[in-house]
């Protein structure tokens, strides 16, 4: 029996050796331009994990280094483009964002860490993209930007970047935020598509495992918009839709109630992680 046991251990070791190299999030720390980034945090109460991890900890060393160095981070171009849009006069009121909000480094600090938040006017949660549209239509006399168009991702990147390093914490006590959180939780655990998978199948049950070449993270949203090395700047709802498409389910529309509920819930799942926008991923 003893001999068999030893053989078992040897076999297990051999398998581990031939399998994927990493299994768990790496032991590494992140600092961007002197700002410490929290990539591991104690999970909030009621969370399925004890600790929440940034997706950064699941990426290869080269990808991690690209985010560490803001000169090398290709996503920083979006932030720079976003700054131009911030100052650009548009619409019938002849105003730019800066006309009312001044220096974004001050007025937009904390926005990326606290959105989505309750919007009493629409009686729904509002995210940064929709807030941009709200100001454009109600304050500037400009048209709303279509999903991923007209600099929406760049301006969102610029606004969220002003919160770099700040811990994510959304306020669920306002309005009906708690009900939207519940709805988002339902979506997260609902199996969808022909492959019959829920978000939780991959990002909770199989977290840390490899699915083909991809090391499965917790699917955190603290780095969006993100720069994907294989496909460029990627907005959050684009990522949600991509993950849903991969289950062979119909993709809900960007900013639909379903995806706004999901954004509310998944943002909460990353409570305590630093805003990393623009993060770099594979």
């Amino acid at each position: 029996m003893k001999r068999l046991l030893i053989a078992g251990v040897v076999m297990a070791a051999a398998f581990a050796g031939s399998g994927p190299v990493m299994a768990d999030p790496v032991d590494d720390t992140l600092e961007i331009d002197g700002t410490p980034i929290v990539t591991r945090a104690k999970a909030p109460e009621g969370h399925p994990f004890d600790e929440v991890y940034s997706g950064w900890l699941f990426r290869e060393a080269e990808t991690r280094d690209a985010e560490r160095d803001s000169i090398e981070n290709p996503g920083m171009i979006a932030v720079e483009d976003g700054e131009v849009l911030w100052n650009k006069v548009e619409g019938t009121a002849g105003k730019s964002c800066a006309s009312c909000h001044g220096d974004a480094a001050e007025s937009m600090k904390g926005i990326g860490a606290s959105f989505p938040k309750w919007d009493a006017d629409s009686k729904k949660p509002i995210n940064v993209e929709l807030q941009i549209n709200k100001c454009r239509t109600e304050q500037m006399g400009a048209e709303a930007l279509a999903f991923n168009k007209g600099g929406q991702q760049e301006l969102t990147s610029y606004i969220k970047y002003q919160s770099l390093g700040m811990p994510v914490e959304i306020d669920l006590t306002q309005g009906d935020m708690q009900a939207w959180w519940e709805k988002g939780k339902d979506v997260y655990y609902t199996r969808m598509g022909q492959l019959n998978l829920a978000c939780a199948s991959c990002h909770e049950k199989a977290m840390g495992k490899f699915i083909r070449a991809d090391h499965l993270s917790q699917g955190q949203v603290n780095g969006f918009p993100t720069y994907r090395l294989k496909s460029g700047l990627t907005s959050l709802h684009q990522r949600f839709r991509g993950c849903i498409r991969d289950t062979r389910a119909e993709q809900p529309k960007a900013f639909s109630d379903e995806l706004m509920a999901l954004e509310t819930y998944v943002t909460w799942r990353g409570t305590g992680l630093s805003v990393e926008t623009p993060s770099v991923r594979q």
Partner: protein
Amino acid sequence: MTRRMKITLGAMAAVALSTAAFASEVSPDAVEFTDDGVTVSLTGVAGDPAAGAEAFKSRKLGNCLACHTSTDMSKELFHGDVGPSLDGVASRWEQPMLRAIVVNSKHVFTDETVMPGFYSLNVGQDVAKDFVGKTILTAQQVEDVVAYLGTLKE
């Protein structure tokens, strides 16, 4: 027999053949699970292990390597490890159980398993239009994959 009749008869025979093949195929809703697994072939046509290996690795078909490693497929890039290694799997499970696992592993493991049912219409919500009412693999592809798994002995 006139030439014209011959052609008609030939065509009729072809029609008869294809309906016969169809009739003996077990539909996804009619697959019978027993304690030993799925004991009856889904098509009555022996599985082809070489075709099964192709369906196994194809990302559009089984995409089994997304979640499983296998030494036999070591030439293929990127094996996942969401599920266990399939090395020696035919020494762990008899053929009817392997068939049951591929058809719908939720009958063998638990409802909670991450592994999709490859010949099941018991699927998730909001299936995309192109896939409504369709199974991931055809009945014959399941038989082929099962035949391929049968070659993975210790």
